[in-house]
């Protein structure tokens, strides 16, 4: 048998450069499950990609509509941006009763959305990261920072929660300025940040989007020399493009204390794509969760397996890392509990979103190095 899962991401549009690695992450999990031969008595899983454009709610809804009706997918990895995700969830997935797990929609508003238990996400809450980042910066003895965020719900949410946490602990945010992704020039932003000053610059953006432009400008004009990188900025590109210029800067990303991310990276490398891409691991986890829940419910009907998603994601049970999906299926078949950790140390809380532990990193000797876990 063949089970189809939809992958609805913004393959064209402002985040188009992030989408391929995410889709490949999800497909990697599907391939792993299919190859194990242990899924639903030997069924295979294939992904069907659909373009959500990230910005156009109507087009995204049409895409998801088509995935569900025409392709007959049993679950969806996606969408990508919060607005588009909400629209396709409420207008299509919910009426059709199909599970959606978003790897990257981080808007807090999604937590309170009525979803009939059909919506989950594997990206962490922004609020927690703000606190983690505050502690880290304080420990570095930095008392004032300039802050710039990518102008979307992720960036805005993260920036606001960080600013609140940081100022609560006596720090000073000299400026809290947005930058838009995909703009041709960031001189104005860099100039404003530089003028506001601060001991370090926090860039709550994406490394392969505007975040890089800001970083480049800040480095070249000599405006800042220490940077703080939240999850969206920590990736292979950061090391490759800026390695030796940002030694001493630091940051954090959600990651299990174990070697989940590393295992995922190795698997991605073997599969021939760059697993360090933002949200690539989360996409892997989203796909894995859907399939494990199906196995646990022994049904591909969303109405049935939606109840199992939280079970397989959380304790109790044996911890499952990337590359161990076959083992997980075996355990499920034996009737044992599993606690899926995956590439992003999945821990679904509340209405089904990731709690996340964080890995603190520092750039040393031109490389991203893990300092500790929080």
């Amino acid at each position, binding site marked *: 048998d063949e089970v189809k899962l939809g992958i609805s991401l913004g*393959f*064209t549009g*402002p985040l*188009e450069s992030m*989408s*391929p690695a995410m889709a490949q992450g999800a497909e990697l999990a599907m391939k792993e499950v299919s190859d194990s031969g242990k899924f639903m008595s030997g069924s295979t899983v294939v992904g069907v*990609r*659909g*373009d959500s*454009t990230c*910005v*156009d*709610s*109507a*087009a995204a*809804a*049409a*895409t998801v*509509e*088509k995935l569900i*009706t*025409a392709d007959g997918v049993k679950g969806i990895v996606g969408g990508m*941006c*919060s*607005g*588009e995700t*909400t*629209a396709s969830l*409420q*207008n*299509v997935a*919910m*009426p*059709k*009763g199909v599970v959606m797990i978003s790897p990257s929609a981080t*808007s*807090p*508003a999604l937590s*309170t*959305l009525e979803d*009939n238990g059909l919506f989950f996400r594997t990206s962490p809450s922004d*609020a927690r990261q703000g606190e983690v980042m505050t502690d880290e910066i304080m420990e570095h003895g930095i008392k004032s920072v300039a802050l710039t965020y990518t*102008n*979307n*719900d992720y*960036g*805005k*949410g993260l920036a*606001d929660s960080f600013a609140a946490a940081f100022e609560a602990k006596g720090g000073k945010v000299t400026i809290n300025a*947005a930058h838009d992704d995909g703009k041709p020039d960031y001189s104005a932003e860099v100039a404003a940040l530089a003028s506001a000053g601060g001991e370090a610059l926090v860039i709550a953006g994406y490394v392969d989007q505007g975040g890089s432009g800001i970083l480049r400008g800040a480095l070249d004009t000599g405006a800042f020399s220490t940077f703080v990188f939240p999850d969206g900025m920590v990736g292979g590109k950061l090391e490759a493009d800026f390695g030796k210029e940002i030694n001493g800067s630091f940051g954090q990303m959600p990651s299990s204390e174990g070697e989940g991310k590393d295992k995922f990276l190795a698997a991605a490398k073997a599969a*021939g*794509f760059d697993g360090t891409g933002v949200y690539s691991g989360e996409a892997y986890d989203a796909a894995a969760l859907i399939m494990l829940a199906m196995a646990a419910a022994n049904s591909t009907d969303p109405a049935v397996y939606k109840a199992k998603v939280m079970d397989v994601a959380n304790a109790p049970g044996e911890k499952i890392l990337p590359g161990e999906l076959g083992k997980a299926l075996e355990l499920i078949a034996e009737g044992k509990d599993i606690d899926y950790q995956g590439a992003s140390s999945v821990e679904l809380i509340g209405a089904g979103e990731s709690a996340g532990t964080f890995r603190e990193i520092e750039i040393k000797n031109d490389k991203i190095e893990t300092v500790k876990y929080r």
Partner: protein
Amino acid sequence: MSTHQPKAAKGGKWRAPAMFGALAVLFILEGTVSNTFFSGHWDNALGILRVGLISAILALGVNIQWGYAGLFNTGVVGFLALGGLAPVLVSMPATPGAFAAGGWGILIALCVAMATLVAAVFLWGRLPVRLRGWAVAATLVLGFFAYRAVFDPAVEAVQAINPSAQGYLGGIGLPVLLSWPIGAALAAAAAWVVGKTALGLRSDYLAIATLGIGEIIVAVLRNEEWLDRGVLNVNGIPRPWPVPYETNLQQDPGFLARAASFGLDPMTGSTLLVKLLYCLLFIAVLGLLIWAAQLALNSPWGRMMRAIRDNEVAAAAMGKNVTGRHLQIFIIGSAVLGLAGAMLISLDGQMTPSGYNPLRYTFLIWVMVIVGGSGNNWGSVLGGLLIWFVWIKAGEWGPTLMGMLADHLADGTLKSHLVDSAPHMRLVIMGVILLAVLRFSPRGLLPER
């Protein structure tokens, strides 16, 4: 340049019915035939139709401005977005305490801003030329600082209220259908301001001015959280009467019985019913607009408008108030855009200001108008429906085509590169279809005359 135009397309009076017939066939195929190109589900066909109808209204709005009067408005996205604000302001519940915290402050600040502008305009008119530059600048600067002094704390107070879910003033909790005319009114008001200042500009200059105004409006909506939560989006905007929620239908015994009698499972039945109701609602609005637009175009009023479009200098010499008429038509067209914006938001059920990008909401609409045949109302409707259909389907056909291509290749980097770039075939296909239409019907599918 000599004036002869490519000759009107062939087909005469049967052309329009034939074109709409062909379009209907496309939608029917989408609803019934399942193959590489069509999904074979009515859900999809109606889903596309529903947004297509709104696109048709948008195209009609642009056509009223361009086709009737030659006004090159590329700020479509701005007026659309402004219309989209209406459902938020009209039908969302008010945020408790928000108005008390900062509402008055914001209102006062806006009044200050308004007063400053009025004063500046007044001074400009009254003072001697030598003084007025400085006086106006000083007024503006002072006014700006006064405005910021009142505005900033008020906004902060509003945004402090439960920021992750609210942090804005909210609306007044009225039925969402009411917001449609209000969206039109909002856009019309903005068009009045824009028109008063910018309508003296010539074609392409007006285009860039309106493009800028569109960007400015969207920037405001993206960044003024007290108004519409900015990039954080407003969710849960109620549906317009009489459209029910599918999940409610699926639990409604009456509906379940009815669906069963039609031989439909409740899931399919409910989604189809909802889409059908939306479509009917939109068709009603579109029909009303088309009726009004056709009557107007074929009246002496329309003749006057065409005369102004053809030659403004001569029209003015023949006693037509060119500026006044331009303003009128700009406001009407923008109101239609605002109406469509409000309809779109009440269809999506949410307001996502960062979704308003000019490629999708300005250029694509223009493509619809031009492909349909500018100056022809039915052409705009046709263009709206057709181009939207193509825009959506091209997203599916692109990867399909690429997949066929890649099937013959061995696995490897080239193949994976091709597969990864498949979504971009959407644009290629869209472009090729656009070029093909314009090639074989260079004045649009339904030319003006």
